[in-house]
């Protein structure tokens, strides 16, 4: 290893792309030779971030979601980016059980899951401009 490998993908903001995004990321991550459990972790975290872009970022409307994945040494970095409504208070949004979409039966656990399944989660957001979630995970400890 040592060499950095990258891929980025742009897709429509559609709920069917939640599954597409996690499969693509898992296939890309397989070059780091992860365990099945690590692959599940990655899939779950990606699913959360992409679902948030679809539901919250673009409010179930049209938009483009960008997903970037990068493998370097034994670390997988995944970046999920939307150009949607953005988040005014990121700290509050990341609190467990906090959700602004109660009527859609959201659990408010999306960010908690990303944090549980990845080693590092960083959220950058500007209201009206969009949200970028950057997640890192060390593969094969």
């Amino acid at each position, binding site marked *: 290893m040592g060499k950095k490998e990258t891929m980025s993908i742009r897709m429509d903001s559609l*709920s*069917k792309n*939640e*599954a597409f995004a*996690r499969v693509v990321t898992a296939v890309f991550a397989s070059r780091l030779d992860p365990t*099945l*459990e690590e692959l*599940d972790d990655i*899939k*779950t975290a990606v*699913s*959360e971030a992409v*679902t948030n872009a*679809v*539901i919250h970022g673009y409010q179930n409307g049209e938009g483009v979601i960008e997903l970037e994945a990068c493998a370097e040494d034994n670390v997988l970095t995944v970046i999920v980016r939307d150009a949607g409504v953005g988040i005014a208070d990121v700290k509050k949004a990341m609190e467990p059980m906090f959700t602004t979409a109660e009527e*859609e*039966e*959201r*659990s408010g*656990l*999306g960010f*908690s*899951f990303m944090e*549980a399944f990845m080693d590092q989660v960083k959220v950058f957001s500007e209201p009206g401009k969009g949200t970028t979630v950057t997640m890192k995970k060390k593969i094969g400890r």
Partner: protein
Amino acid sequence: MEDAFIYEADGQTLIIHLPRELDHHNCKRLQYETDHLMAENYISRIIFDFTKTQFMDSSGIGILLNRYKQMGSGGGKTAFYGAGAQVMRVLKIAGIPGLMEPFETKESALLG
């Protein structure tokens, strides 16, 4: 293409056989359909069957928690069985086993 849920009634118990992937995309129908079923029938207990479920995320947890609330918080009113590795980890992180009774098999879940 879409995964199918299958609902099974056993007296006042509703068994929901969950799909292969329980994410936001696949949850949309489940939400609508169970609300409909519960409005039309008297259901006092819900059992979730994860036997076929290979993937679940927090969208699935949202569905589970809302059914739990609808059933009222009394003991044993919601239960689940058949959870594999990924599903079990997700359920545990969300604290579901403290709210819903876990079982190994359908038979033991029905006995309660």
